C-alpha cells in the first residue's frame, strides 16, 4: 500500500471540506477500499474516514419511509430493520461475512456500486432516495454503470431513504468464494406497482427488469413470469458463470423471490 494521510472528521461539513483537497478520497468501512489500496489500484494522498461522523449513523422509520444513515454498518442494518423492512434486513445480514458486516457500510456500498453488490439491488427495487451532503438523488437516476454513480467528486452519501413496500424479497445466488452475488434479484411490491432489480448479472451493473415488473404488477404470482426471459447479450461472464447461465438465473431467482414474498 502506498502511504496516505488519514483525516477523521466528526461532522459531514468537515468531511466535505477535507474531501475538497486534491486526491483526497472518502473511507467508509474500508471493506472494499482497503483491499483495493493494498493492490495499489488506487493511490489517494489522503483518506477521509467517515466512521466518526455521528450524524451519519443509525436508522429511523417515519410514515412508511425507512431512513438509514450512510455510515451505518451492515450488521446494524440487519439487526435494526428486521421488523420495519425484513427483506432489507435479510439482505444486509447476508453480505460478506460477520466481521465484514461489522465494518462495511450502506453508504460505502452504494458509493462504490460494485456490479455484484447487494445494496444497489435493494435501493433500486425500493425506489430509494440517496441523500448526499448536497442533494437528494432518486435511485433510478443514481446508478450509472460499473462502479459509477451520479455522485460528484467529494460528494458523500449521508443517508438512504427506503419507501417500505407491502411485501419484498431478495434472492441471492452466492458466489461462495467472494460472498458477492453471482446473481441477485430484489422484488418489491408497492401499492402502485412492482419493482424488480437485478445485480451481479449485467455488464452495466444493477438494472430493473421492466418486463417482469409489468407482469408482476398485473398479477403478483410466480406463474406470471412464465415465458419471460432476458437476453444473454450484455450479461457478465466469468469462470463462475456464462452469460446464458446468468440470464437464466435471473428468471429463476425472480420467481423464487415472488414465491417467497407471498
Amino acid at each position: 500500500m502506498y502511504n496516505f494521510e488519514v483525516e477523521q472528521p466528526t461532522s459531514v461539513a468537515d468531511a466535505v471540506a477535507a474531501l475538497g483537497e486534491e486526491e483526497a478520497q472518502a473511507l467508509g468501512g474500508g471493506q472494499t477500499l482497503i483491499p483495493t489500496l493494498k493492490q495499489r489500484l488506487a493511490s489517494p494522498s489522503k483518506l477521509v474516514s467517515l466512521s466518526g461522523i455521528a450524524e451519519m449513523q443509525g436508522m429511523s422509520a417515519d410514515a412508511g419511509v425507512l431512513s438509514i444513515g450512510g455510515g451505518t454498518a451492515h450488521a446494524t442494518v440487519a439487526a435494526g430493520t428486521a421488523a420495519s423492512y425484513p427483506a432489507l434486513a435479510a439482505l444486509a445480514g447476508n453480505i460478506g461475512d460477520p466481521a465484514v458486516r461489522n465494518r462495511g457500510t450502506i453508504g460505502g456500498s452504494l458509493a462504490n456500486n460494485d456490479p455484484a453488490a447487494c445494496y444497489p439491488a435493494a435501493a433500486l427495487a425500493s425506489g430509494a432516495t440517496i441523500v448526499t451532503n448536497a442533494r437528494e438523488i432518486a435511485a433510478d437516476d443514481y446508478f450509472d454503470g460499473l462502479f459509477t454513480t451520479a455522485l460528484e467528486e467529494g460528494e458523500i452519501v449521508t443517508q438512504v431513504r427506503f419507501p417500505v413496500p407491502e411485501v419484498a424479497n431478495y434472492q441471492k445466488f452466492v458466489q461462495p468464494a467472494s460472498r458477492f452475488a453471482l446473481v441477485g434479484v430484489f422484488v418489491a411490491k408497492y401499492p402502485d406497482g412492482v419493482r424488480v432489480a437485478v445485480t451481479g448479472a449485467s455488464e452495466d451493473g444493477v438494472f430493473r427488469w421492466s418486463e417482469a415488473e409489468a407482469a408482476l404488477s398485473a398479477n403478483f404470482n410466480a406463474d406470471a413470469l412464465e415465458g419471460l426471459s432476458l437476453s444473454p447479450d450484455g450479461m457478465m461472464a466469468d469462470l463462475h458463470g456464462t452469460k446464458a447461465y446468468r440470464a437464466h438465473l435471473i428468471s429463476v431467482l425472480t420467481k423464487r423471490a415472488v414465491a417467497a414474498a407471498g
Partner: protein
Amino acid sequence: MTKVSMTVNGKPASGEAEGRTLLSSFLREELELTGTHVGCDTSQCGACVVHVNGVAVKSCTMLAIEAEGAEVATIEGQAAADGTLNTVQQAFQDHHGLQCGFCTPGMVMSATALLKDNPKPSEQEIREYLEGNLCRCTGYHNIVKAIMAASGQDVSAIAAE
C-alpha cells in the same frame, strides 16, 4: 507517523502508526502481540479477527488510526493471567478444534463474538457465522464441535466423528 493509543485486552497501549498502518500490523509489530495472525491479508481468511469495541472485525482490513481510543480484544487477552484457558479455548483443546493452529486465534475470536450475541447457536448458525474464517487444514467439524461444547450444548450429533 502518528501516535495511536487504545485499550488492548484491558490495558492502555500506544505506538506509532503511518496512515496506511493496518490494525493487524500495529498489534503485531508495534505492540508485539503476534497472536493475531495474518493469513491472506485480503480479508478472506479471518485469521486476523479481533474485537474492536465489542464486535469482531478483520484487523487486516481496518487502519490502526481508526482504532484510536477503541477497546481492542485479541487472543492474548482470552486466557486468565495464570494461563488458565477460557471456556472457548478449553473447548478447542478438548475437542481438537485445531490442527496446525494458524487459523485458531481468528476462530476463537469469531466464536467468542458469536456466543456473545447468540449463547446457544445451532450447528447451522455456527457454520454460517464462520463463513469468514478459513481453516486450510479443513478442520471445521471439530471447530464447530468445540463451539457447540463451549456453549454448553450436546456435541454428539455433529458429523465426522
